[in-house]
């Protein structure tokens, strides 16, 4: 079991002088689950992307520690899994090919059986040899989950986790989040009140336009 810690200190993000959020600070440890909420445009997706390491903060500090060792930003991809509406998979490849490529590009030794097990877990095993471009929006959302959990990440970032999902899909998300690894961290960004159950704490980004509030 690894011990992971996420420290966010005085995080600020602006886009072309438009303030998204300011002085955001919180700390998460292994086993924590947190919900980020706020109005449209409050910066939920922006914060998720910053936590994933694919967007740079304007100022402030974001640090991950695994077993008390600080992780460099270029290595976040090894332990972060992200599901987001902005995520687009390679639709010229099949479901299996996408996951196989992702595992190889990540440098992981993931067997064909493990890929098939992941596809089975998200309910896409029957469509594993179909091109992703033939998938419905709900199936693409399931593929995003498959790509996020394939490498057994320590940090799971979910942006609008239940969008486009049917009842089975939502049940899958419940099972994934509530049974996520004990040493992991889950961050859920959502406007849906029924998704607030995923977190022990809730951060409302509307409160971080000009304030200093620790969670």
């Amino acid at each position, binding site marked *: 079991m690894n011990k992971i810690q996420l420290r966010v200190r005085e995080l600020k993000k602006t886009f072309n002088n438009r303030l998204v959020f300011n002085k955001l600070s919180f700390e998460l440890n292994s086993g924590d689950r947190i919900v980020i909420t706020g109005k449209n445009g409050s910066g939920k997706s922006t914060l998720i992307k910053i936590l994933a390491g694919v967007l*740079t903060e304007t100022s402030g500090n974001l640090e991950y520690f695994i077993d008390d060792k600080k992780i460099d930003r270029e290595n976040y991809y090894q332990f972060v899994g992200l599901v*987001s509406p902005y995520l*687009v998979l*390679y639709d010229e*490849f099949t479901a299996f090919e996408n996951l196989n490529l*992702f595992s190889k*590009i990540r440098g992981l030794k993931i067997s064909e059986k493990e890929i098939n097990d992941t596809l089975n877990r998200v309910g896409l095993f029957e469509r594993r040899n179909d091109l992703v471009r033939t998938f419905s929006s709900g199936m693409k959302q399931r593929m995003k989950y498959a790509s996020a959990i394939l490498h057994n990440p320590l940090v799971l970032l979910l942006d609008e986790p239940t969008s486009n999902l049917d009842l089975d899909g939502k049940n899958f998300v419940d099972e994934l989040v509530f049974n996520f690894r004990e040493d992991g961290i889950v961050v859920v960004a959502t406007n849906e009140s029924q998704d607030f159950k995923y977190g022990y704490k809730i951060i409302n980004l509307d409160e971080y336009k000009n304030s200093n509030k620790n969670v």
Partner: protein
Amino acid sequence: MKVFYIFYKDFSSELRMRFALNALIMFVIVAVSTILFSIGSERAPQNVYAGMFWVIVFFSAMSGLSRAFVSEEERGTNLILSLIASPISIFAGKFFFNLVLIFFINSIIAILYLTLFQDFIIQNWNSFLLAFILGNIGIAGSSTIIAAIISKANVKGTLYPVLAFPVLLPLILMLIEITKSAMEGNPISDVNAEFMVLLSYDVVMITASVLVFDIIWRD
């Protein structure tokens, strides 16, 4: 191996989608045909053939090498790529893809040139081939980093050649000089200075690209 699989992803995708390949092949055929019909039975000086060869190479690079990054940005797949690989791996994989693509296309250009233009005669093949290899490396290196830069811009199409021209111009000028020398049959030692510039260009461009790519890639 991570770099190889990023290259493999682009290579497989290109074979299936043929975004860059079809455009490049059509450009080469049209460009060479146009020059062939323009010259007709006239005889042009050797330096003109050398210049036209590398002009076609330059514009074929402009037609196709930006796809490596622009397609990721336009399709929205840059986010998943950021999530599964480090910036240095992404740059290296894309660079090798562009290198293979430019070698393939420029080999076709060279074969067509040698076949269709009787006055395009290479007397010193060592000189020409070394310039061909170093030139392609330089074009791939510069084009890859410029493609990464313009992929973030709103107006990508016109910006690519505008940014690439001043960066690639020194390289193209050296290549034209070496090609002229190779056509005249001069020894390699006559163009030592040009080869040193070529080699330095390749080293500097690739090193600078690796150093700045992380900043360019992240939003």
